């Protein structure tokens, strides 16, 4: 195991503008359906198009669950987002506890773009050490956190209504 950043890269058969647009306007079409933050069926995922913009999920019942916040908005070149979902799959409003992902869109040709995603600073989620201890010691504890992360993500943990 390591603390290092995640890096994933794909080459898409699209212009940089289309690649950027598909990434930010159609999240609900490509973010896996069974990994959700809200606890109702997911209808949409929105990335508000500016620095400070909210990234959130919309449920079938109209409820909204925040995922994060836009840090860099630079179409069609770069997007950066603070990932504000904690290891216990709860939204954490303290942005200093958030990891972040940066997406760079590099033109290879007029209809070919390299999309590079780096998700880093996961250790910030551990900065809320007391929070983690509470998750460990509280009802559910480590079994909920470790053994069932995939199940929690599928079930969702946010149930606020808008």
């Amino acid at each position, binding site marked *: *195991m*390591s*603390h290092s950043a*995640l890096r*994933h*890269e*794909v*080459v*898409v*058969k*699209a*212009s940089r503008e*289309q*690649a950027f647009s*598909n*990434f930010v306007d*159609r999240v609900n*079409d*490509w*973010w*896996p359906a069974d*990994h959700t933050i809200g606890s109702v069926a997911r209808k949409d995922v929105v990335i508000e198009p500016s620095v400070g913009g909210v990234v959130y999920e919309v449920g079938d019942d109209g409820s909204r669950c925040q995922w994060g916040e836009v840090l860099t908005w630079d179409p069609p070149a770069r997007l950066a987002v603070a*990932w504000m*979902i*904690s*290891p*216990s799959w709860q939204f954490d409003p303290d942005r200093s506890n958030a*990891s972040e992902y940066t997406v760079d869109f590099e033109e290879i040709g007029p*209809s070919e*773009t390299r*999309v590079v*995603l780096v*998700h880093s600073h*996961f*250790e*910030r*989620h*551990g900065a809320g050490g007391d929070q*983690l201890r509470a*998750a*460990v010691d509280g009802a559910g*504890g*480590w*079994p909920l*956190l*470790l*053994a*069932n*992360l*995939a199940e929690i*993500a599928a079930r969702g943990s946010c149930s606020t209504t808008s």
Partner: protein
Amino acid sequence: MATNGTDILRALGHETRQQIVERLIDGPLGVQELSDTLPVTRSAVSQHLKVLRAAGVVADRAEGTRRLYQLTPQGFEVLRDYLDVVWAQALHNYSRLAASNADHHEEKSRP
């Protein structure tokens, strides 16, 4: 290449390993203490601990002549490894979407 993410999910997707994790919440335990409270053999417990250790979920240390196993506190590493798997899937879906969207645009612009 198998990622740490798949190791984590494989490590945790097993009932006996989940039971081991539950036992370790209250503090470190040795292999014998774990197998005394679980319906599996000592050697099975050792095997499961090996998987959990390789996935970084537990760590071991020596205490006298025995080894103690404890949970690693790094919940964020679990999150990291889980997201490694999710991002791989997400970007795969995204690249297929971007390609089909581009094809659609080309068709629309044909006379």
